[in-house]
Structure formats: structure tokens, C-alpha cells
């Protein structure tokens, strides 16, 4: 861990526009170490006058991919770091970062399941790392992702999630659209509530491991509802962040 927390210069090898507001940066790391799904990296920018700004970004990729990490970053218009990453950084540029960081909001196949992933907006990023890790490790742990988004345009990784659904390998993806659903949509179209969580967890095996990540209000509502549904509070892992709504 001592080495992991040294600042290092990573090289951006690829930038992928995920949605109008989110890009995934693939970054090659000279001091790469395998992360745990759910961990993040700190990115630090330094201005010519020495002013520094630092933010944490969740890892989207699985630890099985050696030597690089993928960070999906949502553009916060009045932010200090994400507009620079979105508008200025190009492939082959170098970025200062350190990680992987975190031991609380993490999951490895060794922890077992079944895995209940509840994500709002870009809160799906660390959950995607867990799903990708589960797939890469060849695990058959029952996994359900409840993904709350404003509209179809805001869905991160839509093709990959569709493929996981189609392959029927035990990864279910359930969407709820809070503002605008696709045409002909018959699924959920409201904020996550207790009735929704009850329906989703009722078809899952016992011993659930819930991971909830998203804006504060969503995280608190989902975590409280899961406790009321009888899931022990100390099994529920949460990660909350501020400025984006779902």
C-alpha cells in the first residue's frame, strides 16, 4: 500500500465519450498495482502558479486488466478538475494521480454474494468495476444492478450492460428512469423506493451484499429502505457524492 499511494504520472492512452456528460479515460500507470473493485484514484492538477486541485474518481475497469485503469469522469460544469479532463486532456497526455485508494466500498469475488448493486447516475462507475471483476473472474455469484438514471441518454455502458443481460449469466440489470423513459418503456419510472427494492430483493438468495453509490439523497433513501427490509445495516456499503442528480 505504501507504494500505491505515491503520486505517479500516468499516460492517457484512450478517451471514450460515454454520454454527453461523461468520458472514460484509459490511463497507463508506471506503478500499477491491482485494485479492488470499488476503489478510486485521486487526480491532482497543478497550475503554473503552484495552485493544486485534487479530486477522487472511481475506477471503472476490473483489476484483471494489468498496467492500466479506466476512470469514468462526469463533467461538473463549475468543477475544478473535471472540465480540464473533459476539455483539455488528449490521448498521450500525462496526468498526475495516486491510488488505488479505499478499503470500505470494495468488493472481491472472495467476499461472495449475492450482490445487490444500487447506482444513481455516475454512481454506477464503481459498481461497473464490480460487475466487470465478477465476469473476468468467471464467478457465478447472483448479481443484480438497479440503475437509476434521468433518461436513456444518461446511461453509462449501455451496450455492455445489454450484453450481460442477453448472455443470462446471472447478471440482471434493472433500470429506473426518473425523468424520461425510452418509448414503450414498461419498467420503473420513478426514484428508488422501498417497494422497488422489495421487488428486486425478493427474488434474490439470502445473505445479500448491497453496495449503494450515488447522490446523497438516493444513497440515504436506498440504505434506509434496505435496513427496513431486514438487511443488517453493517452489510450495506455506501458511497455518496454531491453535485449530480438522478
Amino acid at each position, binding site marked *: 500500500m505504501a507504494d500505491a499511494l505515491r503520486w505517479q504520472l500516468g499516460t492517457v492512452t484512450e478517451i471514450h465519450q460515454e454520454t454527453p456528460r461523461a468520458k472514460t479515460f484509459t490511463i497507463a500507470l508506471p506503478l500499477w498495482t491491482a485494485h479492488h473493485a470499488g476503489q478510486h484514484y485521486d487526480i491532482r492538477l497543478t497550475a503554473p502558479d503552484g495552485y493544486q486541485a485534487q479530486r477522487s474518481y472511481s475506477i471503472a475497469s476490473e483489476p484483471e486488466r494489468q498496467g492500466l485503469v479506466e476512470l469514468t469522469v462526469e463533467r461538473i460544469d463549475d468543477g475544478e478538475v473535471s472540465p480540464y479532463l473533459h476539455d483539455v486532456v488528449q490521448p498521450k497526455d500525462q496526468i498526475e494521480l495516486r491510488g488505488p485508494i479505499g478499503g470500505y466500498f470494495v468488493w472481491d469475488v472472495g467476499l461472495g454474494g449475492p450482490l445487490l448493486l444500487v447506482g444513481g447516475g455516475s454512481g454506477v462507475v464503481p459498481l461497473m468495476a464490480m460487475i466487470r471483476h465478477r465476469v473476468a473472474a468467471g464467478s457465478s455469484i447472483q448479481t443484480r444492478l438497479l440503475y437509476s438514471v434521468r433518461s436513456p441518454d444518461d446511461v453509462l455502458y449501455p451496450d455492455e450492460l445489454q450484453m450481460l443481460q442477453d448472455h443470462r449469466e446471472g447478471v440482471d440489470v434493472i433500470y429506473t428512469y426518473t425523468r424520461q423513459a425510452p418509448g414503450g418503456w414498461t419498467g420503473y419510472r420513478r426514484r428508488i423506493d422501498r417497494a422497488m427494492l422489495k421487488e428486486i430483493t425478493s427474488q434474490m438468495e439470502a445473505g445479500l451484499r448491497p453496495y449503494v453509490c450515488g447522490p446523497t439523497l438516493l444513497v440515504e433513501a436506498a440504505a434506509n429502505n434496505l435496513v427496513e427490509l431486514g438487511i443488517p445495516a453493517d452489510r450495506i456499503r455506501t*458511497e455518496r457524492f454531491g453535485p449530480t442528480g438522478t
Partner: protein
Amino acid sequence: MDEQDGDRNRELMLDGNAAGGMLYDVFSAEMTAAPTECASCGRRGEIGSLLAFTQAPGLVLRCPSCENAMVRIVRAGDVTYLDARGAVYLRIAR
């Protein structure tokens, strides 16, 4: 602090997970999974589950149940001030 500032602070609120890097700087240990206890209401939970206010010139970790300020860290150059009177204990595992 007027109400608008309060809203803004809350909007920018993160949690103890996001403070993992800074906590590592101070304690030389992974701290987000470390258990702690609120000195005000007695809630027990991991550092990662605490509310984190990082936009101030420092870090404030608050209890998610009663919002008591459990840990305050301010860094100025090579000097770090740590005020953890709001926590009964912190566990540092190196």
C-alpha cells in the same frame, strides 16, 4: 453561514471514501474501512460511511446520524492539525 452556503456545502458533500487519500497522508494507513464511534450519539461505523466536507480549507468528517463533527484535519504546508474530539476512537492499522 447563510442558508445558501449551507445548501452549497451539502451539494458538494462527499463521504469518507473520498477522503481516503488525505487520511492516508496523515495516518500512513488505509483508513476508510477503519471502525470509529461518534462521541455525540454513539453511532458505530467505518470511516468510509461518514459524511465528508472537503471544500473547506481542510477536511471535516461528520456522523451521518447526528452530523456531529467527528474529525477535522487542516494542513498548512508541512504542518497538519488533527482535531478528533468528536470521535471516541480511531483505529489505525498499519
